[in-house]
């Protein structure tokens, strides 16, 4: 009888001690916010284009983190982003949802045909990254270095003077292609 009491007493004491430690840890090491959102946000391309139907990359990341959103709604990120998110969340990658747009091979850049610009500032208000410079009734121009190519400025322009042009490759941005994958045995088969 005495032994049972001692055992119960010891267990109660242990439970109290560990409970106190856990309780302390829960307060002391509490993580503010959801860290998975930051990780997801870092994987997204940050074009802030809204093609996923969320107002920016972070809201989309938050929606994914809450678990009620698919991971295949980001056309600028494309397959590599989908794979990276799938990797992070431990889910199966899905093909890009065509409803939200197609992955583009070339990067685009907004260019304002400046002699046609009437200075209405509508594109400035539309640009999610403040990459358009100008003032009312003054000609506007795109800061090429900051443009993410999201094309949100094209729609609001009343005179259609914004073009999305492919970013030109320069000697500084050029790099080697992957060698063609055909090896000798493949070539024999192909022939």
């Amino acid at each position: 009888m005495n032994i049972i009491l001692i055992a119960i007493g010891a267990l109660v004491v242990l439970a109290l001690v560990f409970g106190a430690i856990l309780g302390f840890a829960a307060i002391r090491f509490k993580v503010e916010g959801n860290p998975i959102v930051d990780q997801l946000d870092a994987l997204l391309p940050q074009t802030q284009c809204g093609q996923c139907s969320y107002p920016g990359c972070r809201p989309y990341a938050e929606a994914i983190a809450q678990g009620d959103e698919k991971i295949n709604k980001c056309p600028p990120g494309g397959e590599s982003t989908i794979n990276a998110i799938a990797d992070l969340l431990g889910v199966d990658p899905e093909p890009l949802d065509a409803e939200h747009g197609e992955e583009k091979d070339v990067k685009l850049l907004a260019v304002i045909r400046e002699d046609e610009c009437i200075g209405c500032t509508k594109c400035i208000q539309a640009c999610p990254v403040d990459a358009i410079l100008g003032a009312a009734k003054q000609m506007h121009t795109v800061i090429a270095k900051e443009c993410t190519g999201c094309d949100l400025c094209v729609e609001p322009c009343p005179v259609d003077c914004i073009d999305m042009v492919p970013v030109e490759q320069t000697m500084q941005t050029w790099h080697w292609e992957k060698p063609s994958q055909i090896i000798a045995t493949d070539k024999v088969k192909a022939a």
Partner: protein
Amino acid sequence: MKPIQLHDFSGGIHPNENKIQSTTLEILDAKIPEKLILPIAQHIGAPSKPIVNPGDIVLKGQLIAQGEDFVSCNLHAPTSGVIGDITQKSVPHQSNMAALCIEIITDGKDKWVKHQGVENYLQADASQLIEKIQQAGITGLGGAGFPTHVKASIPASKIDTLIINAAECEPYITADDLLMREHAHEIIQGIEILCQILKPKQCIIGIENNKPQAIETLQNSISSLANNSHHIQVASIPTKYPSGGEKQLIQILTGNEVPNGGLPADIGIVLQNVGTAYAIYQAIAKGEPLISRITTVTGDACDQPRNFRVLLGTQVKDLLTQANTNLKKTSRLIMGGPMMGVTLQDAEVPVVKTTNCIIAASKHELPNPAMEQACIRCGMCTQACPAQLLPQQLYWFAKSSNLDQAKAHNIGDCIECGACSYVCPSNIPLVQYYRFAKGEIKQAHADKIKSDGAKKRFDTRTARLEREIAEKEAKRKARAEAAAKKQADKKAELAKNPAPSEPAPQVDIEALQKKLDATKMAIEKSKAKLAEAQATNSAKVELLQGALEKAQAKMKDIALTISQAKKDAKSPAGTNTEKSSVKVEATDVIEGLKQKVLAAKTRMEKAQERLNMAKEQNLDTVDALQLGVNKQKEKLDAAQKNLEEAAQ
């Protein structure tokens, strides 16, 4: 002097040297071609900016393009002539892309611009020497083309060893070899200048032992120095490719390794090419900018392989002609060495600052790469790798675009020497895979920087918009609060002084004032009458006296009331607003009346119109309508009258 303890680096290969062919003849000055093509980006860093225009006449050695940045380089006219066009032309680059080039139509006179070297340069100030080197547009002549003045600007306190790279380990190339044989004295002087700038404790010239003649002439030059105060010495190293790689040469000569991602300066070492030392001598002692270089023209298709002193911008085809090259026999044109060089698409491209060799290879000499076979995991590439990497692993990662793993396996430390591809029994173009992976990593890094920037801008913008909305909301609230307070004040005011008393004081004061004036007048009159009566001794005097007194008492009374009223009018703050609100009310009333008048007018006009129409059509309703119009007119008149009254 202590002999240098040599070390070895792991890996390396021994390809056929093929150097004998081009060392039998001395360096020859290449002919001045009809035109020179000078790319503005011949160096690492920002491209230089052209400062000449088409049609300008330039002299030999004149500055034609200015370095735009610290890590950039000047460009000079290699000979006298006229500037042709400044357009995009094909240049020696792996991408085969065109780049901006300045064309010079030569005049054959080769007339120098005024130039002057530094006197007593071995006693000169380091900053003066560096400035002169920068002006002369000198870049590393070994291969990469890093601006020399940037390397020379490393603080002398950080440097204890200067290494001159004369290894020239790639097959075929003999440009440095011949330069050392013929210009050993100038090279040593150039090294002395570098020592003057960097103040190293020791200076080692690393040279492969397959160049005995060069070693001998260099040693003779050093021993002929009056005072070898900088401890310059020649180290003959075993011939092994790639001993001329920066990191490998450092390892051979010092036993130290350059840290991952670091620079030789991190371990107190600066490396310069032997050709660069010569160019420095030319610039400092003679004031001649970098406008020519030694280039080997060799290969089986050349009947007379040799080294040329070539003006920068000379087209490859001009050089090949001077070396009696059989273009039909040429299957491949390579700029640089066979291991790391660039295959040229055509012979139109110019010789640039980093062009040390041109190989016109026959089909037999450098056959097309054999078909790629599957990797058999033999591990020969690992044994050959001079950077102690795992080429086979890197190959798999690069092939599957697994950039994270490639990075984790230090693909950044690959020097792209080609030793792995050389030994690969499956003929896998390993270096191409690494170059691809490196390019992708570089691009991903650039994209990351850009997306981080975009994120920052987006966050700032969102914060700004939120702040603007909050500010607007705060303003609106403040306005609403002010209005509410006003209302409350008004109510309180009304509660304090009952409404009718409000407008009274004003009226009172005016009325009282009038009364006061009238009383004053009456008193005046009574006084006059009294005086008259007194004068005439009339019985009325007493009567008048009484009346006057009464009037005076009344006046006093009135004056008292006025002052009281005035005081009252001054003290309450609400009175003013009260007045204005009364005014506002009045204007409101007027406004309302005006509207009524307008409405009446339109109604009447409409009625009139209908009447006219009826008249035209001779309808029976004419009379009724006439009545209506008259009524409307009456109404309008009444409204107008009201308005006029209100306005008054």
